[in-house]
């Protein structure tokens, strides 16, 4: 080793003298500039990625709102109606409610149609329901003549909303020139108005767009979510408490943990297959029922709740447990009197997020037959029902032009519902979360 030292000290091969880097030289300046340029580019790429994602979100929401807000409006046409007993098929004298109920109200439109056959394409085929409601409320109307606002057909509704291109060739457009002339004539006579579409919020599915509503699907969704929440929340919290607070570290606990983590990543459609095979085929539960949908979604939501609840329980500091144990609480009392109440806001937040996901889920519900065409809202947990996302799916398949705005309108309602749920979750977190 010393030899080497001496060799360095003595005359040896000449070491080239290291000249200091000349940062001012043109070559070095260009290099530094290039490096900073690539820095700028990289940064711009990051901004671009975020901008693309954001632009897509805006595009998506913008398209939905543009197409959908009109679903909340409906055009009506003013028509003179004579409440003629003969047309209704009612006997003279005071008719009973049963008779009023079963009258032939569609016939009341006959004089209108006789005067102008085109009105048959202007007035919705379900408009008579309003006439029945009027008469049921006030039987004195019988024999009188009134001007009544009746629901317009989808084509006239779209004309009023400007959704139909009038300049297009007649063959390419859904509405004939004659109908447009009639529409303009009605408009000149002041017999058209556009108002809030209550039918859309209170009705159920229908084959004609102007009568279709989301209430049936919404109610089905709510019934289902009740079942999901009622099952998944208690079971999920109890399972999380066991795994986080009591479970011994052994093979058995490992199996439980692994299966929960895997269930959280299983595609939702697999849960649908499970529901079909077990709930419908083995247990013989009713098809299309909210209880089956709720059960299926509960199994899907369970792992989400367990994972969120475990995280919330873990964040409660051990000092709380030690203090409770120290003053003589039993192990069950420690958890149920002290740890669980402190973890509850976190658990609730996770539960709401899980439920929001279940509320937007479609695929598993298709598997268990919640795709039925139902014109009434479900009356109970075992009645055939559909759900809001499934209704969106059904309508999206419908070729009738009027259903595009209904589909987008239903999507707006669904998104508002999910936003409200998430807002509650965020509020809960901000209001009650404790940072230890």
């Amino acid at each position: 080793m010393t030899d080497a030292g001496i060799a360095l000290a003595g005359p040896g091969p000449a070491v080239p003298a290291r000249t200091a880097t000349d940062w001012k030289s043109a070559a070095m300046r260009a290099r530094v500039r290039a490096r900073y340029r690539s820095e700028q580019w990289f940064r711009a790429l990051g901004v671009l990625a975020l901008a693309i994602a954001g632009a897509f979100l805006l595009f998506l929401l913008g398209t939905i709102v543009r197409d959908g807000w009109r679903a909340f409006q409906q055009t009506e046409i003013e028509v003179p109606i004579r409440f003629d007993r003969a047309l209704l098929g009612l006997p003279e004298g005071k008719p009973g409610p049963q008779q009023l109920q079963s009258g032939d109200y569609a016939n009341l439109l006959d004089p209108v149609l006789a005067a102008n056959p085109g009105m048959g394409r202007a007035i919705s085929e379900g408009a008579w329901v309003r006439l029945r409601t009027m008469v049921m409320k006030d039987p004195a109307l019988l024999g009188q003549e009134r001007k009544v606002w009746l629901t317009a057909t989808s084509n006239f509704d779209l004309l009023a909303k400007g959704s139909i291109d009038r300049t297009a060739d007649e063959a390419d457009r859904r509405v004939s020139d004659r109908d447009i002339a009639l529409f303009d004539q009605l408009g000149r006579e002041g017999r058209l108005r556009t108002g809030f579409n209550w039918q859309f919020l209170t009705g159920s599915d229908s084959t004609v767009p102007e009568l279709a509503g989301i209430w049936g699907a919404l109610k089905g969704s709510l019934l289902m979510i009740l079942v999901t929440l009622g099952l998944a929340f208690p079971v999920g919290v109890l399972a999380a408490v066991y795994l986080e607070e009591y479970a011994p570290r052994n093979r058995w606990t490992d199996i439980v943990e692994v299966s929960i983590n895997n269930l959280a990543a299983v595609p939702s459609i697999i849960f649908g297959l499970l529901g079909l095979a077990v709930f419908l085929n083995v247990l013989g539960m009713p098809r299309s029922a909210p209880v089956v949908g709720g059960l299926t979604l509960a199994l899907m939501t369970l792992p989400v709740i367990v994972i969120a609840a475990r995280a919330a329980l873990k964040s409660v500091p051990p000092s709380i447990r030690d203090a409770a144990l120290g003053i003589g609480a039993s192990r069950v009392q420690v958890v149920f009197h002290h740890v669980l109440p402190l973890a509850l806001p976190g658990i609730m937040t996770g539960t709401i997020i899980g439920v929001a996901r279940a509320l937007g889920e479609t695929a598993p519900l298709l598997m268990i037959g919640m795709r039925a065409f139902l014109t009434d809202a479900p009356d109970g947990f075992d009645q055939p029902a559909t759900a809001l996302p499934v209704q969106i799916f059904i309508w999206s398949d419908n070729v009738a032009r009027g259903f595009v705005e209904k589909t987008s309108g239903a999507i707006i309602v669904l998104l508002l519902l999910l936003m409200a749920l998430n807002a509650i979750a965020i509020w809960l977190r901000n209001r009650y979360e404790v940072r230890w």
Partner: protein
Amino acid sequence: MSPALLLLILLGLGGLAYGMGRARARAFATDPRAAVHSRPVYHGAFVAAVALLPALLLLAAWALLADGLVDAAVLARLPDGGGFETDLARTAFLTEVGELARGDIPSAFDPRAAELAPVWRAASQRIGWLFGGGVLALFAVGALWAFGRLRPGFRARTAVERLVMAALMLASLIAILTTLGIVLSLLFESLRFFRLVSPVEFLSGLTWSPQTAIRADQVGSSGGFGAVPLFWGTIFIGAIIAMVVAIPLGLMSAVFLTQYAPAAFRRWAKPILEVLAGVPTVVYGFFAALTVAPLVRQLGLSLGIAEASAESALAAGLVMGIMIIPFVSSMADDALAAVPAAMKDGSLAMGATVSETIRRVLIPAALPGIAGGVLLAVSRAIGETMIVVMAAGLAANLTANPFRSVTTVTAQIVALLTGDQEFDSAKTLSAFALGLVLFLVTLALNIYALAIVKRYREAYD
């Protein structure tokens, strides 16, 4: 008596039992010589639990079994079990008898139903009384026995807590039962399918046309159950097109948000990005089918691709990729955050720019974590259903042209299982075989990806 009414009565009685147990324990507490072990609430809960649990179990058994028992009693009256040709005919007949007996329908189609309606009524009533009486008797016995055990020294709290622990364990068992249920139901139906179609044909065949013929001599009666076009479509959309969109966008947004963006911007931008993950997939599907697919088709036509179809792999894959962005982004975020700060600081101290540090140091160091996240994203994308059902179509094409329509495993499962189902046809059963493949593949991807992520975390801890 209906099960629902009995349930209400039982719950009311349970409340009563709780109150009585608690009142009795309160009386102990007034005796100064008694060493009371548990507080009165535990005595009350003990009585209520011992009385209610067996009764509720019997009630559940009743709700499950009652219909079958009534049906058996009705069928016993028919010579040689009614001689029904199919199970369906027997079920229909029994439904008719039941509806007639309850008065839901005025008259029955089958003359035997009218005869048997009184039998149904009698059997239903008898079984109702039997079970109802049994449930109430069980409740009474349980309540009396538990009440008799209440003493000042009785360890009611220990007993109740043992029950609570049992309930906790049962709850955690549900996860295993669900997994077991998925595996068994998929396996069972798939085995039935593989009895009709060989697994080799299913996994390697190139034609997919799952119609089964009604008559043997019908055209196309053979049916084709080669799932390779489905597997390819799934990989093409979920693992290729969607990832081409999601990986660069997700990774770059994670890099920008964690390395460049000021904290205030990050606080706003991240939740907005997360909204993309919160939009229901049916909404994406609607958007893909109605807005994106026509644009993609126009693009294809303008590029001179004549076969560009209205339902294309590209439209579905693009939208799915956008949906996956927040997922990839948050996985990349975690992976980048796990790289020790010393590595980043060292690189910056040597004079590297931020982007050089990210490209040469951070991303290579975080690569295993990012790769694991991407695998998880792939697993999510191939299990995604609604977007492909609505935008990718049902044509089983084996093509690499993104402007053509392809179909995926999930889209086919939906197509096979909606509408009429007979549970002995290969068509319906094939959906379960597809489900089994999907389950196994996503499971393997998840386990492998989580293992990578875990090992990577440990390497830096």
